[in-house]
């Protein structure tokens, strides 16, 4: 199943609602970059409130999506990382240092507007 990517003004909005397998994660990576290209979006918010665990593979895909979108000229903010997910990622040794994050979708959109400078 593909993850829906919605356009909202000059941004893209993604809400990941179910556990990601490898193939879905990689398909999403491709779909999102394609959608950025098609819509000329400046920013993307990826909400992962419903995700209750992230392993190193999914973390790598999310980190890569951030870097790849940046190369294309779009900013990505990841929102809604659950306490359990934050704890396990750090214990696992994954810090996702460069990735922009926000507490929830609302704060994510605010952060994106700040980053985009309007």
């Amino acid at each position, binding site marked *: 199943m593909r993850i829906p990517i919605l356009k909202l003004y000059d941004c893209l909005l993604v809400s990941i609602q179910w556990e990601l*397998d*490898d193939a879905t994660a990689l398909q999403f990576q491709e779909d999102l970059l394609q959608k950025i290209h098609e819509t000329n979006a400046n920013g993307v918010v990826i909400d992962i409130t419903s995700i209750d*665990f992230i*392993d190193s*593979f999914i973390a790598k895909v999310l980190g890569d999506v951030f870097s790849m979108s940046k190369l294309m000229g779009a900013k990505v903010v990841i929102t809604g990382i659950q*306490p*359990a997910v934050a704890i396990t990622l750090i214990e*696992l*040794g994954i810090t996702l240092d460069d990735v922009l994050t926000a507490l929830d979708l609302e704060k994510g959109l605010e952060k994106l507007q700040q980053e985009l400078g309007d």
Partner: protein
Amino acid sequence: MEVQSCVKIINEWDIVAARQLGRNVAKDLGFGTVDQARVTTAISELARNIYLYAGQGTVAIEKVQRNGKAGMKIIAVDEGPGIKDIRKVMEDGYTTSGGLGAGLPGVKRLMDEFDIDSTPGKGTKILATKWLR
């Protein structure tokens, strides 16, 4: 319904099956959300290691009891190339896959007990246990 306690790891879908099994057992034993995430993540990493390095193997989940405490044990076994230098793979930041997995030190931190036994050319067996607090 009987809980399946062993998953054969042959393709990447089996990684999903293994961690779902682990999460169900963790929930069943009464682990909190953070420990459920720890166990699920650890299983995902161990199953991925098997898939990446050994091609195939098994991940078994066992409910265990010790001194009145309950816990769950992950047993990851493969007959892959084995690990030559175990001390080296237990160092943070060591990778042979270019950063695909977080590596074994991460799994060790997520679990309470961690034990690895590997023979080059024969395979690897990893035991990792999490106790109910």
